[in-house]
């Protein structure tokens, strides 16, 4: 168990004081519901851009991408260079003119303007439910990690974090969330950059890391570069640790899931809608794309390093002493690791400093079907922090970790209070009330959004499979949504009945495909196969990508078919909502980098270069 010193606590307390202080300072600027929910559309592009990326920088990003880095290597960068940047460019160039130009206050409200009330209602209910559960899962993961890492009380950890997020959103609304997200962005960058530097220095730079990971690849039956080259082994699913071939990757991740998330998820789109002009709104995802493409170096490389860092490396005294005396049950200490340069698996099956996953009943390491120890990859990044950081810097690293959890939660809560107030309460419960009433409702929604998140954290703690189940539901709902938006924005013939039926059919098709398929080695249940196993996939990711493809294609086809047999809306009603009926936005900015199109070219060129460098 890691013991913190006063300096670590001082760094954390300074951060907590500033985030609440920002909320208090912004309270006097919140006078209308638009101020609270949309920041009065007054925020400059650089701030909304960094908030756009930070709202997505939750636990899944920092812990999850570190875990994937340890498990899959540099191929995890596909989640950025294929699975994020192209979609961010697309939403900035082509979709933001409709979101921002239509003056819709939320993504579900755009669906109402473009299609009809029932399509908005369906999207609003599913989105509001998903946001509070996502927020709860983020809280649960944080409480569990702090309990394991520092021995802090699970209850106290989630209540304090939830209380801080509640305080700053309640006071300053979306502006406060956005300002704090920018603060959290810089904290995450400055908290993790030295980890990458120290880790790479310890293993002899990128060349040293590649050499050691070649050993890990050999042990797992892959070619030497399988963990350090992103495309070279994507020809066949069996040749790479991800277990996916290039077509499934590009179509499933790069197209359906990526565009489904970045182009339609109100959590991120809301940041751009708070920008102070159309040009600023369009530049928001493009500005976000610049740091986003560099994030693999910050969050994936620590995971890769965790697989090869050894006990001969620089080890903090606390860990060294814990190893000398033997770990307490459940304590987070580095396991014995293979000698430098050795290809042999670690005693007990640990990989580098990634500990084995323990059976909660027996305390023994879990083993897979082939008898190999299952590693707890989620601990890869936290292990790196306690392994390399001395007191002081450890406080900064842990604060960065807390910031990532809190920014993820705040993003969900601000999206929830807006959708609840505008799309559900104002539409179905109490339409026509004074603006002050909706402002007050937004604050109440913040309180009960946080309260439901805390409850969801306890639900997640009680059920082993709840997180897998919810991730599944998110995939079912999000994947077909992009087909609805793509047709809605770029095909004027698409109708409300078509959109509604297509969304339902897409979700059902996703459930059917998932129920009829199973990843290799998984048991029938929440992982799939509950309708009978018709096909198996080499990995869970491959199954997810293909489920998304099936959902998207079904939604796309059904929406077109139903639209063609139902009556479209007159063209006059669709101006500003559909491409072809909306004037192209003019960018009057003087400097080239203030205009979206040249910025998009730069972003895409850099992304192609990064793919080539790590090919």
């Amino acid at each position, binding site marked *: 168990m890691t013991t913190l010193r006063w*300096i670590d606590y*001082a*760094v954390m307390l*300074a*951060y907590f004081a*500033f985030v609440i*202080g*920002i909320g208090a*300072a*912004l309270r006097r*600027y919140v006078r209308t519901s638009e101020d609270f929910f949309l920041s009065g559309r*007054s*925020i*400059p592009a650089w*701030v909304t851009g960094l908030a756009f990326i930070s709202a997505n920088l939750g636990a899944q990003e920092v812990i999850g991408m570190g875990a994937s880095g340890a498990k899959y290597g540099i191929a995890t960068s596909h989640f950025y260079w294929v699975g994020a940047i192209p979609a961010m460019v697309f939403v900035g160039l082509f979709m933001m003119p409709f979101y921002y130009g239509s003056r819709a206050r939320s993504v579900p409200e755009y669906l109402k303007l473009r299609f009809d009330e029932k399509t908005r209602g369906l999207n609003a209910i599913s989105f509001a439910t998903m946001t509070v559960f996502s927020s709860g899962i983020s809280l649960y993961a944080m409480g569990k990690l702090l309990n394991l890492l520092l021995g802090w009380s699970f209850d106290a950890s989630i209540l304090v974090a939830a209380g801080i997020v509640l305080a700053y959103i309640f006071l300053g609304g979306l*502006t406060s969330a956005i*300002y704090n997200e*920018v*603060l959290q962005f*810089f904290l995450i960058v*400055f908290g993790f950059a*030295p980890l990458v530097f*120290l880790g790479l*220095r*310890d293993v002899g730079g990128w060349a040293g890391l590649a050499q050691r990971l070649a050993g890990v690849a050999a042990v797992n039956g892959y070619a030497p570069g399988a963990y350090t080259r992103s495309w070279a082994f994507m020809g066949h699913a069996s040749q790479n640790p991800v277990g996916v071939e290039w077509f499934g990757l590009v179509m499933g991740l790069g197209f359906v899931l990526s565009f489904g998330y970045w182009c339609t998820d109100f959590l991120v789109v809301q940041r751009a809608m708070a920008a102070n002009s159309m040009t600023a709104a369009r530049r928001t995802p493009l500005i976000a794309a610049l740091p986003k493409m560099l994030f693999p170096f910050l969050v994936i490389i620590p995971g890769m390093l965790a697989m090869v860092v050894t006990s001969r*490396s*620089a080890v*903090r*005294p606390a860990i060294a002493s814990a190893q000398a005396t033997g770990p307490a049950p459940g304590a987070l200490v580095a396991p014995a690791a293979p000698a430098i340069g050795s290809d042999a698996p670690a005693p007990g099956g640990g990989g580098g400093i990634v500990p084995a996953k323990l059976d909660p009943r027996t305390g023994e390491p879990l083993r897979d079907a082939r008898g190999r120890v299952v590693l707890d990859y989620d601990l890869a990044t936290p292990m790196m922090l306690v392994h*390399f*950081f*001395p*007191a*002081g*810097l450890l406080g*900064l690293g842990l604060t960065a970790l807390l910031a990532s959890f809190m920014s993820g939660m705040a993003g969900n809560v601000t999206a929830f209070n807006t959708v609840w107030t505008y799309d559900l309460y104002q539409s179905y419960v109490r339409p026509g009330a004074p603006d002050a009433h909706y402002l007050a409702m937004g604050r109440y929604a913040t309180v009960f959004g946080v309260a439901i998140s805390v409850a969801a954290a306890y639900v997640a703690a009680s059920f082993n499979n709840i997180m897998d189940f919810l991730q599944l539901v998110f995939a079912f709902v999000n994947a077909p949504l992009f087909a609805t938006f793509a047709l809605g924005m770029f095909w004027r013939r698409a109708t409300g009945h078509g959109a509604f039926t297509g969304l339902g059919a897409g979700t059902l098709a996703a459930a059917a495909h998932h129920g009829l398929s199973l990843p290799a080695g998984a048991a029938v249940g929440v992982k799939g196969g509950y309708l009978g196993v018709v096909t198996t996939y080499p990995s869970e990711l491959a199954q997810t990508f293909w489920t998304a493809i099936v959902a998207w294609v079904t939604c796309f086809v059904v929406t077109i078919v139903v639209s063609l047999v139902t009556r479209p809306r007159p063209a006059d009603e669709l101006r500003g909502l559909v491409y072809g009926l909306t004037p192209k936005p003019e960018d009057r900015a003087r400097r080239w980098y203030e205009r979206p199109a040249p910025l998009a070219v730069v972003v895409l060129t850099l992304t192609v270069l990064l793919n080539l460098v790590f090919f």
Partner: protein
Amino acid sequence: MRLDLRTPLGALFGMVGALLAGYGAATLGQPGTAPTGIPIDLVWGLVLLGFGLTMLALARRARRDSAA
């Protein structure tokens, strides 16, 4: 903009940087404070301090420009 974000950003990082650099200087040479041979608290504290001061200077210049 209502509150120049660079002000709290600069103040937080300036403060944390000063804390870290001060702690790093005070514990210089003690075991466990220099992984891989670098006094990282001191070095990174100075980096954070520099970033914080830059942000504060930019916020101050923007205030002066808008007042002029």
